[in-house]
């Protein structure tokens, strides 16, 4: 077994790992990042090929249990109402994400105080605002500031992408009804930007962006991070975090590309492995001093899993609108029903995003009403759908529940001989009520916009993009895993910077907040570099 050393070890080269690595490297800190996946060549993405939908349903599927690439690890999901979606590789899930770039709302940080549910975050919107602002520049966000749903913030670096003909119809409808809407903010370039080409509106964002217009961190962060000295090792899977005799994290064991176990020693360890991967690794790293999993004296590691239940409503219009084109980021969004209102019968709410409706294979296969369909009705469905429809995706704010969790299943052993991660997750009654209400309202939105027909699925199970909360942040070490600087309560030189630290989920997409939190923690480490706790290696 060979051993290497580094000042800071980051585990995971996705969104949070990339943001952290780049920020640390800009300050001259020596960083090594271990990533189980590989680099992708943009030319390999299927979006510019005629069979892109077929590929996106298989080898480029966002569900790792379907994709089953070499970089993926098994996630048992038969005990979860929602299936996980993520990507393992340089760039992580930003390779396949839709790049909706949304800040949390101020109320999202204080749901307990405002609405009597969930937990308050130990930080607030103003704490993250400077980092949201800076990251908008690094990620190259297109949009327009001034949304009255938010406090004022600086203009985005690029103007919004076109909201599309269907977006104009729905925007006008919301205007007439007095409902909130706003042009979509997306980490997708609308102009040439820092070497990136602008979006070509091919609408294949979720199969990787062939143009490099989408702000995936393999494009936006890793090239500069590596040029600044970060060592990024790909194709290596971390199997254990190591502790020294003082109870500090001192590195990790990992399997190299040949399956051999190697060791890396580090003064500081940062976990950036997704809410599933990070919790899994901590639980697998149990030791005599942490028999229930590393950094888990609170018993909170793996708990409070939130997955953003989603419903989808489709509006069908008479006019051809080429709605297979456009960006599959959000065309417009609505926060009309994001906040608690007494008359609703549920707490918190949902964020809506309007998007194109995909190509012909989506039209043929999407189970609109779950009924089996072939023959003339199938021809009719394709005719109605292709180019003449738009989709409201509706994300419910998911509240923390200790029974929703990631556990290790001792009966199913992975290729490393370790127990496999299992998701135990039930959609709450509150979330179900949110989605039923929102579905009705979204139908109303489309009808006002001129749709002659709508169709809805009130719960889309294959859409667990936003796994959050499995190592939550807090000031009370008995009830949380990390402190407000994302530093483990139990192990002072161990940090967790991914979506696992979320206290509550908001209803908006989490990427911008994950990135802001990661950058804030990197700045904390940089600012306290001379005094921060380190392992001696």
């Amino acid at each position, binding site marked *: 077994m060979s051993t290497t050393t580094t000042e800071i070890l980051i585990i995971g080269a996705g969104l949070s790992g990339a943001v952290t690595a780049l920020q640390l490297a800009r300050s001259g800190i020596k960083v090594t990042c271990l990533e189980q996946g590989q680099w992708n060549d943009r030319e390999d993405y299927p979006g*510019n090929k005629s069979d892109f939908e077929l590929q996106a349903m298989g080898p480029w599927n966002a569900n790792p249990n379907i994709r089953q690439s070499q970089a993926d690890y098994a996630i048992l999901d038969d005990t979860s109402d929602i299936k996980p979606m993520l990507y393992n590789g340089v760039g992580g899930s930003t390779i396949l994400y839709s790049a909706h770039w949304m800040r949390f709302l101020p109320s999202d940080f204080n749901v307990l105080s405002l609405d009597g549910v969930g937990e308050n975050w130990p930080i*607030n919107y103003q704490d993250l605002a400077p980092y949201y602002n800076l990251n908008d520049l690094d990620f190259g966000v297109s949009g*327009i500031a001034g949304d009255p749903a938010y406090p004022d913030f600086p203009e985005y670096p690029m103007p919004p992408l076109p909201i599309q003909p269907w977006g104009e119809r729905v925007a006008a409808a919301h205007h007439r009804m007095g409902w909130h809407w706003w042009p979509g903010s997306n980490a997708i370039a609308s102009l040439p930007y820092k070497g990136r080409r602008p979006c070509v509106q*091919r609408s294949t964002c979720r199969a990787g962006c062939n143009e490099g217009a989408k702000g995936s961190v393999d494009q936006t962060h890793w090239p500069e991070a590596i040029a600044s000295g970060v060592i990024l090792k790909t194709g290596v899977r971390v199997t254990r975090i190591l502790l020294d005799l003082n109870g500090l994290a001192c590195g990790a064991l990992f399997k190299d590309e040949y399956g051999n176990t190697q060791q890396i020693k580090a003064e500081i360890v940062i976990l950036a492995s997704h809410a599933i991967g990070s919790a899994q690794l901590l639980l697998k790293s149990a030791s005599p001093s942490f028999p229930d999993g590393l950094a888990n004296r609170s018993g909170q590691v793996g708990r409070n899993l939130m997955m953003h239940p989603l419903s989808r409503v489709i509006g069908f219009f008479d006019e051809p609108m080429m709605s297979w084109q456009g960006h599959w980021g959000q065309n417009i969004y609505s926060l009309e029903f994001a906040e608690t209102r007494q008359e609703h019968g549920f707490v918190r709410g949902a964020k809506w995003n309007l998007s194109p409706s995909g*190509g*012909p294979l989506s039209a043929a296969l999407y189970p609109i009403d779950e009924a089996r369909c072939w023959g*003339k009705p199938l021809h009719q469905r394709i005719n109605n759908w292709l180019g003449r429809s738009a989709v409201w995706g509706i994300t419910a704010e998911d509240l923390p529940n200790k029974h929703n969790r990631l556990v290790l299943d001792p009966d199913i052993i992975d290729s490393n001989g370790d127990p496999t991660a299992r998701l135990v997750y039930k959609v709450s009654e509150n979330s179900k009520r949110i989605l039923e209400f929102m579905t009705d309202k979204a139908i109303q939105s489309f009808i006002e916009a001129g749709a002659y027909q709508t169709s809805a699925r009130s719960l889309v199970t294959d859409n667990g993009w936003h796994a959050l909360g499995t190592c939550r942040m807090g000031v009370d070490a008995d009830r949380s895993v990390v402190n407000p600087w994302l530093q483990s309560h139990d192990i002072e030189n161990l940090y967790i910077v991914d979506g696992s630290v979320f206290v509550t989920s908001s209803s908006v997409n989490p990427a911008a907040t994950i990135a802001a939190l990661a950058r804030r923690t990197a700045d904390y480490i940089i600012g306290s570099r001379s005094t921060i706790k380190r392992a001696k290696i």
Partner: protein
Amino acid sequence: MMEVINEQQRNSFAEISNIVFPGGCSQPPSSDFDLKNAPLDRVLRARNELIHPLISILNQYESEPDAFLSHLTDTDFKLIMTIISASYLSVQQVKDSLEYPGQQAMTLSRTGFGAEELVFELMQQPKRYRDL
């Protein structure tokens, strides 16, 4: 070794496809095309992991494609519909009938994002967010 779909299985595939896409709404019937050969092979080249389960499904087929489709498990139904639909929709004449040119790279318009007047009106509205 890669499995091969035999002639009987291909004929079953064609029979089922003809029920799935009989033609309608200006879309041609699948029987106009040799779906069981080049289009099917195109799909299976792209997704060769589907060959084995497809063969298993086709081996269950005897006759009566409507009844056959009705009685498939959800997983098998989804799989065979994916392959039939992808084969059919890969045919150029079908794309032409749908006026679908494929996902095109387009140059972004520089004339604005749309509905600007409404956005400027919204900007004048009072802030609506909640906070402590």
